[in-house]
């Protein structure tokens, strides 16, 4: 178990990167605290798997250093870094039994057979595969295989970190939930540093204490699930987290309030400084109210998603989504109100800090 420091890491897959766009991973400077559960969240191709492979040593970063507990491990190989990684598709050794699969990393490291046995039995019971130990690993189901992959990391009690690369992609939905819960329990029990790559916001938000949102090779925000929801630092975080994502509308600043088209919208708190660049107003659908007061709008579509309804409306030509209760009344001439507490201002896609 270790604290992981990423010291100005940059990575390009090409030999001689010229411009910033050549980098698959733009500068990352961040610390994963010892025993923390982190999720790297982002769309495909945002660099999250690259970052994970740089931590595990499968990819050598073009620039920057990695430190485990303050020791520079940048030049070390994957074996020497002593980490565990669970991949998207379960990697198991088909011809071995479940027991031998779990014993494999220990035997490779020359651990004595009694110690191997003790450790393997302990992990077998932990991942609920006690009765399967003598079975060939080939016939197992995908979730059992993925547990073995995880188990191979857990048997080594001294691993610095456990890395997960979208580990639940091929698992059935109901088993996803079970495995996620087990993973959380294992984390609480052993306190490994865990880094979990995913593009599924539900997975990220339920697994992690801290979610690292990545976009186009950069970390755009690191925060708790609540922070990501209430104060997205970047419009991408607003879009990507939440269902549906945040509404983003072009606006102008007029004194202490915002102007969208011909509508004046009062702000909870004015911006700390006068922002420059393209100004936008972000508001999550949860904070949009539909009623008889406010800004005139037209409703284009209503989607029923069970306990809520998603209303798509047009406001000054911009599409705005709102989440309303199942039994809410939708007037014939609807008007929109934005809850000032839910409003964030963005300048060139980055959030503008407010005065307080």
């Amino acid at each position, binding site marked *: 178990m270790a604290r992981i420091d990423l010291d100005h890491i940059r990575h390009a897959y090409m030999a001689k990167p010229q411009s910033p766009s050549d980098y698959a991973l733009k500068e990352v400077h961040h610390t994963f605290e010892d025993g923390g559960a982190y999720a790297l969240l982002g769309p495909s191709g945002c660099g999250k798997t690259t970052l994970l492979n740089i931590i*595990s040593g499968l990819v050598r970063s073009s620039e920057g250093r990695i430190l485990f507990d303050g020791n520079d491990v940048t030049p070390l190989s994957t074996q020497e870094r002593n980490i565990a990684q669970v991949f998207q598709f379960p*990697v198991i050794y088909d011809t071995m039994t479940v027991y031998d699969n779990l014993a494999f990393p220990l035997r490779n490291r020359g651990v004595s057979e009694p110690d191997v046995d003790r450790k393997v039995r302990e992990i077998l019971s932990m991942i609920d595969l006690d009765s399967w130990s003598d079975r060939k690993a080939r016939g197992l189901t*995908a979730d059992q295989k993925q547990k073995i992959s995880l188990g191979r990391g857990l048997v080594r009690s001294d691993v610095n970190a456990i890395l997960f690369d979208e580990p639940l992609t091929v698992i059935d939905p109901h088993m996803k939930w079970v495995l996620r819960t087990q993973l959380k329990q294992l984390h609480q029990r052993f306190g490994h540093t865990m880094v979990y790559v995913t593009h599924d916001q539900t997975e990220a938000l339920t697994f992690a204490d801290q979610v690292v949102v990545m976009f186009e090779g950069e970390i755009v925000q690191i925060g708790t699930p609540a922070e990501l929801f209430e104060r997205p630092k970047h419009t991408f975080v607003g879009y990507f987290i939440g269902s549906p994502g945040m509404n983003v509308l072009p606006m102008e600043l007029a004194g202490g309030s915002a102007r969208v088209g011909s509508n004046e919208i009062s702000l909870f708190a004015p911006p700390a400084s006068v922002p420059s660049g393209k100004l936008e107003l972000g508001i999550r659908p949860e904070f949009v109210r539909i009623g008889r007061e406010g800004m005139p709008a037209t409703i284009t579509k209503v989607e029923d998603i069970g306990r809520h309804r998603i209303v798509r409306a047009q406001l000054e030509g911009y599409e705005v989504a709102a989440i309303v209760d199942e039994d809410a009344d939708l007037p014939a001439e609807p008007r929109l109100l934005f809850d000032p507490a839910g409003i964030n201002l963005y300048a060139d896609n980055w959030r503008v800090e407010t005065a307080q």
Partner: protein
Amino acid sequence: MNKTWNNKAWFMVLPVLFLVAISAIIPLMTVVNYSVQDTFGNNEFFWAGAEWFEEMLTSDRFWAAMGRNLLFSGIVLLIEIPLGILIALNMPKSGWGVPVCLVLMALPLLIPWNVVGTIWQVFGRVDIGLLGYALREVGVDYNYVSDPFDAWVTVIVMDVWHWTSLVVLLCYAGLVSIPDAYYQAAKIDGASRWAVFRYIQLPKMNRVLLIAVLLRFMDSFMIYTEPFVVTGGGPGNSTTFLSIDLVKMAVGQFDIGPAAAMSIIYFLIILLLSWVFYTVMTNYDAASDGERRDG
């Protein structure tokens, strides 16, 4: 489930049946016909029963040829399979080297069999052949025409040259289908190079290796053209394999009855091998079914 039975469908099979009859069944039946009769020319035939079969199965000549065939197949497999795996493991996985290697590997497979035989027949000659002459020059007493051991070495090296590529290509196809994650996981687990081969590459090559072994066994068991061109079965009978012996008997000596009996025995052996091939394959599929269902 209710099926509609429509016997008219059988008529659809008739053309195929007709073609198969002309190309396979009728010639085979002619051979069966010859194998139970004797002739002294003049188109007169006499019933011989199982006489030719008894003669064949008790003849030293047949069993000697059979023994040579099995020895040949055994040696060829022992060399080509490990060599093929070794080459496949060392072939590049990406970059410009891939097409180059693949073309180089495919070249011997594209050459007609009698041309392969001619190439080696000339190559090995001690007077003008590059190989034969060079070996003579460095002091090796090599002559495939007069020395049975040299003849065997030549025929085996020729087969290895001709067919190892097939094993290489099959193994390579198996190897490139292994996802990177397996190698990465092996690194993380601290596996040695040998362990990677033993627990990742070999199990993943299992299926193609099985095909490679069976194809090479059946092909080498039926070998005819190349040794016929190079050694003509000699010196003496030292490289006379079943197929060469069969042709000698039927076309050379015109012993149609025994040759027909031998054909049928040969055919049954190959049929048996095909059955083994099929059974092993289907059993293997059944055994790995669970794996594929889980993806």
